[in-house]
């Protein structure tokens, strides 16, 4: 039976069917789940359980019927244990959790990401390309070097097929132009007066900087940013370890994707996060 979404339940055990090196220190995994669901929405996340080690939130890069794609970079003991998993091993999945990106009609879609932030943006790109009418999609990706560009071949291929425009850069100039994604982003916003919506995922400090850039341009209709890079326990709203001040919004259910109006109200945005103890610290 195909369900609307997965149930909010104990971890659903899925089998790893593909494991590939995606870029430096980052692996692409395909996980086969025992239940079919209609779809995962771009920006939603799962809680991934590596049995006996840890459970952590991770963005969804793709989902079709019952095959889930995630990208795992080495961040700590949990992600490291996941990277050491092999094809055939079982891992637990809870989700899909959170509010997704909500792309409106008739705008330029500007997807801006860094590092594992590219994960939800990959699913967003897939979703936009599935629409009946051709969408104007621009993807801005930056990394330190070519080896660290996530989904480089995938995005480059779409660019070569003229399905998206891929604005790619590296700090050292080893691929694309040398510099930050914001350079091309600002060039685009200055040259195109048609309405644009920005979708951003990545480190929060970077997002805050991009948010401040976006605010300068009246042709930016909305900025939707994913604040998923925070400590979470439950993923469905109960524990509140991911909550932001002063609104009391839980990243896991009220987010992780917030729009411009909401981001303006979150004083923690780009500045503070919570540790496992609940203590608030500077990012």
């Amino acid at each position: 039976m195909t369900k609307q979404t997965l149930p909010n339940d104990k971890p659903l055990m899925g089998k790893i069917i593909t494991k590939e090196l995606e870029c430096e220190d980052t692996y692409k995994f395909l996980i086969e789940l025992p239940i079919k669901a209609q779809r995962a929405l771009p920006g939603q996340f799962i809680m991934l359980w590596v049995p006996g080690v840890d459970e952590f939130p991770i963005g969804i890069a793709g989902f079709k019927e019952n095959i889930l794609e995630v990208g795992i970079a080495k961040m700590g003991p949990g992600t490291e244990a996941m990277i050491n998993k092999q094809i055939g091993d079982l891992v637990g999945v809870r989700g899909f959790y959170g509010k997704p990106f909500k792309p409106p009609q008739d705008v330029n879609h500007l997807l801006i990401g860094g590092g594992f932030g590219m994960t939800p943006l990959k699913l967003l790109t897939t979703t936009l390309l599935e629409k009946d009418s051709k969408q104007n999609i621009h993807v801005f990706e930056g990394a330190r070097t070519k080896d660290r560009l996530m989904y480089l071949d995938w995005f480059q291929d779409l660019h070569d097929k003229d399905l998206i425009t891929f604005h790619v850069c590296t700090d050292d100039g080893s691929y694309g132009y040398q510099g930050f994604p914001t350079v091309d982003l600002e060039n685009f916003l200055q040259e195109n007066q048609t309405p644009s919506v920005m979708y951003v995922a990545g480190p929060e400090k970077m997002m805050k900087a991009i948010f401040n850039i976006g605010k300068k341009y009246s042709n930016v209709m909305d900025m939707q940013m994913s604040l998923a890079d925070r400590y979470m326990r439950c993923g469905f709203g109960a524990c509140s370890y991911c909550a932001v001040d002063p609104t009391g919004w839980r990243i896991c259910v009220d987010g992780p994707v917030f729009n411009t109006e909401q981001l303006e109200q979150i004083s923690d945005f780009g500045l503070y996060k919570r540790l496992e103890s609940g203590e608030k610290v500077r990012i």
Partner: protein
Amino acid sequence: MSFDTEVGDIQLRNPLILASGVLGTTYSTLQRTYEAGLGAVITKSIGPRSRIGNPNPSVFALQEIRSVINSVGLANPGYSIFREDIQILNENKIPTIVSIFGENKEEFLEVLNGLKDLSVLAFELNLSCPNTEKGGTQIGTDPELVKEIVSMLRKETEIPLWVKLTPNVSNILEIADAAIKGGSDALVAINTLKAMVIDIQTKMPVLGFKRGGLSGAAIKPIGIRYVYDLYENFGDKIPIIGVGGIYRGEDIIEYLLAGATAVEIGTSLGVAYPENMIRFFQMKIKKYMKEHQFNSIKEITGGAHR
């Protein structure tokens, strides 16, 4: 018709209180939940120093029984840091009850003394968390220790002390009696039940801490039974606050009829949007009071004891 509620000397605008452990890590979720229409809120349990708690998975839902299992293990920033959150709640005039815990008498004393100068409606003593190696349940199952801790804290403050009881005992009445003799101002029943989930594919306990505590709909009949028993034995001496598995307005009425003066709600507010849940609760209580010609919450309390 009025929702006004009195728990001992404490006046509340209604009998709905946010239970400790859900939405209580930061002032902003507590404030949000209060503003959604509760009578008061209770913080996450606060101890003497920062604790990161147990490894994940530490909270997940069990859909079939509309419940949640957790082994968070009292993760908290410690009272000296959490003071700031309470101060903001004070400034914003949010009726706040602070849940405190310690591994021994001295730690309870330290936490209470570190917070008692703040505007706190009551301290709820968490003598019953099942998710730590020491303290918690261990204290809450020993009547002598319960009496000793409550009477020691009683001497330190005029602020009401509520004792949260564990259901994981053979005789809850014995513990309740000890809490009353120690000078407790209200009894809160129940905390989570000891529980566990094993994944049959990997043959491993799912919780990072292996063992945990169960909350949610599955434990409601147990909470009702305990509140009923407590009311029968101590209802004339002390207010009883019912907690465990409230998912619908009807559950609140049931707790009141069993003998509760007020109720605490946790899991269901966390799993859903607190704003919607609280609105439904209030609508249901109002409808029930109208249908059964109750004018006050007090009139419902203990109604099942006939």
